[in-house]
């Protein structure tokens, strides 16, 4: 039984916009799952439908085996949602927001207060429990929404860009917290634009574009698809003679001198970076440090989205050609 299973999910809005054209997904129990896609791809619509905020046009959703159409109460009880936008009453106090949310799930007030204390302490908001929500900082508001989503201890936590606009320190502490609750057994679905966040936290991934699932695999398998990686090498001493890089064995590598202290090297999946270092050392070029030019997942993500767009454009052109042929 999957934590979440979506089949052929479609959504057409009243204005005619077809946001989802057939999304298929399955998320294993206990997984930390990344749902990625460019802006407007359909991620938030998918999440909106799963959580009951958006009516679907077609398709099937099962949450821990519960059919979302026929057993909505049970399905909803399994889900905790952290939406993209702040959606709490700005004039309510922090603790009150949590206790009320617990109440909507049928949790008696004394127990809701206990749980509110636990989560507010874990998310470093306990000191702010009597403060009105509107007085919190952006990062605090995000953490409040996480605490609120956890108050009924859901088996599936869905986070729609939870770290958007949050500084790196708080982001890291949020990552640690999410990893901890995932280890405790909560299945997590995460959408984010910070791809290093998805790469470091998630085990499985789906990419949505133009309302369709264009990739659905494990993070490892996806990253293995990467044929080459670009590294930035910082040199110990300035390099003035660029011709060294075009001669001998070094010419086999795609190397560019960005400035006299920095090299940009593109290395194939089958090449060894050690070989490059040896060749550079032979030429008395010593590398001080290095880093990836772009996040690996980001590189792949861009490739997949571009490929999908090219395919879509090609399909559109073919359709137009067929229409013209038919007319002729």
């Amino acid at each position, binding site marked *: 039984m999957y934590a979440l299973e979506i089949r052929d999910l479609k959504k057409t809005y009243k204005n005619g916009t077809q946001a989802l054209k057939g999304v298929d997904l399955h998320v294993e129990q206990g997984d930390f799952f990344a749902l990625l896609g460019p802006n407007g791809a359909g991620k938030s619509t998918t999440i909106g439908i799963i*959580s*009951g905020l*958006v009516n679907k046009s077609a398709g099937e959703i099962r949450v821990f085996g519960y059919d979302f159409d026929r057993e*909505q109460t049970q399905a909803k*009880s399994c889900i905790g949602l952290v939406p993209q936008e702040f*959606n*709490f009453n700005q004039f309510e106090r922090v603790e009150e927001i949590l206790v009320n949310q617990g109440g*909507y799930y049928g*949790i008696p*007030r004394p127990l809701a207060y206990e749980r509110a204390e636990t989560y507010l302490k874990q998310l470093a908001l306990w000191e702010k429990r009597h403060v009105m929500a509107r007085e919190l900082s952006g990062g605090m508001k995000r953490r409040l929404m996480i605490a609120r989503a956890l108050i009924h201890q859901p088996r599936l936590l869905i986070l729609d860009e939870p770290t958007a606009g949050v500084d790196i320190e708080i982001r890291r502490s949020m990552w640690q917290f999410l990893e901890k609750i995932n280890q405790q057994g909560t299945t997590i679905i995460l959408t984010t634009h910070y791809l290093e966040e998805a790469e470091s936290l998630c085990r499985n991934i789906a990419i949505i574009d133009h309302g369709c699932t264009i990739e659905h695999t494990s993070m490892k398998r996806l990253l293995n698809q990467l044929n080459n990686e670009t590294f930035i090498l910082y040199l110990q001493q300035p390099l003035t003679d660029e011709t060294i890089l075009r001669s001998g064995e070094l010419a086999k590598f795609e190397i560019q001198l960005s400035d006299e202290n920095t090299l940009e090297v593109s290395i194939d999946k089958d090449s060894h970076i050690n070989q490059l270092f040896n060749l550079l050392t032979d030429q008395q070029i010593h590398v001080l440090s290095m880093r990836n030019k772009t996040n690996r997942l980001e590189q792949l993500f861009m490739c997949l989205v571009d490929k999908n767009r090219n395919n879509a454009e090609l399909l559109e052109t073919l359709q137009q050609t067929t229409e013209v042929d038919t007319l002729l």
Partner: protein
Amino acid sequence: MNWSAKYTALKTIIIKEYLRFIRIWMQTVLPPAITTALYFVIFGNLIGSQIGDIDGYKYMDYIVPGLILMAVITNAYGNVVSSFYSAKFQKSVEELLVSPIPNYLILSGYVMGGIARGIIVGIVVTVVAMFFTDIEIHSYSLSLLVFFLTASLFSIAGFINAVYANSFDDISIIPTFVLTPLTYLGGIFYSIEMLPEFWQSISLVNPILYMINAFRYGFIGITDTDLNVAISIIVFFNILLFSYAMHLLNKGIGIRQ
């Protein structure tokens, strides 16, 4: 959700709604008390003494039930329309929509919140009225029945208004252009028998007339309309509007995309 969980969920909405209007009592409870006191002073004392008795009652005593019910109608409606629209505006309504709480409990919770404000305001206005009159209530049970049914009806109406509202302007259009005229023309300050026959017939189309007269009967024992017809009309509109509000919630109109 089992019954205990449903009860907790309903109680949560009612407590939240109650705390919301009590926290801002200067805006919610105090104004009707002041307005009603002014009505008593101006219409009851100053002008009323010139009018004389209606159906054997002093003018002041005659207008008391209508003024109480007017405060109840305005506040029950206003409470739900502003609370639910604010929840829509701030998107905090999503807290309810993602939860497993059934739609009929969401509606009932908001309606009971409206009734709660109606009760508090009704009590305050009645206390104010007691400074100006010394009425002996004719039928407590009938007064309370009409009171609850009217507060419930206008709470549901406020909910429907909030579902359709797309801006804060939309939540004041109905109270200003529909509710207030119908209330004033519903016989608070006069008996429809004082009107020409044509306007009497027109007045009988106004449902608020029946509510005010039924409440007046419960209070002082006189009415311009048939009591059974009045109660039937109030019950009918309660059922009709509740069903319609449920239809809106189930379809997600105005709240789900």
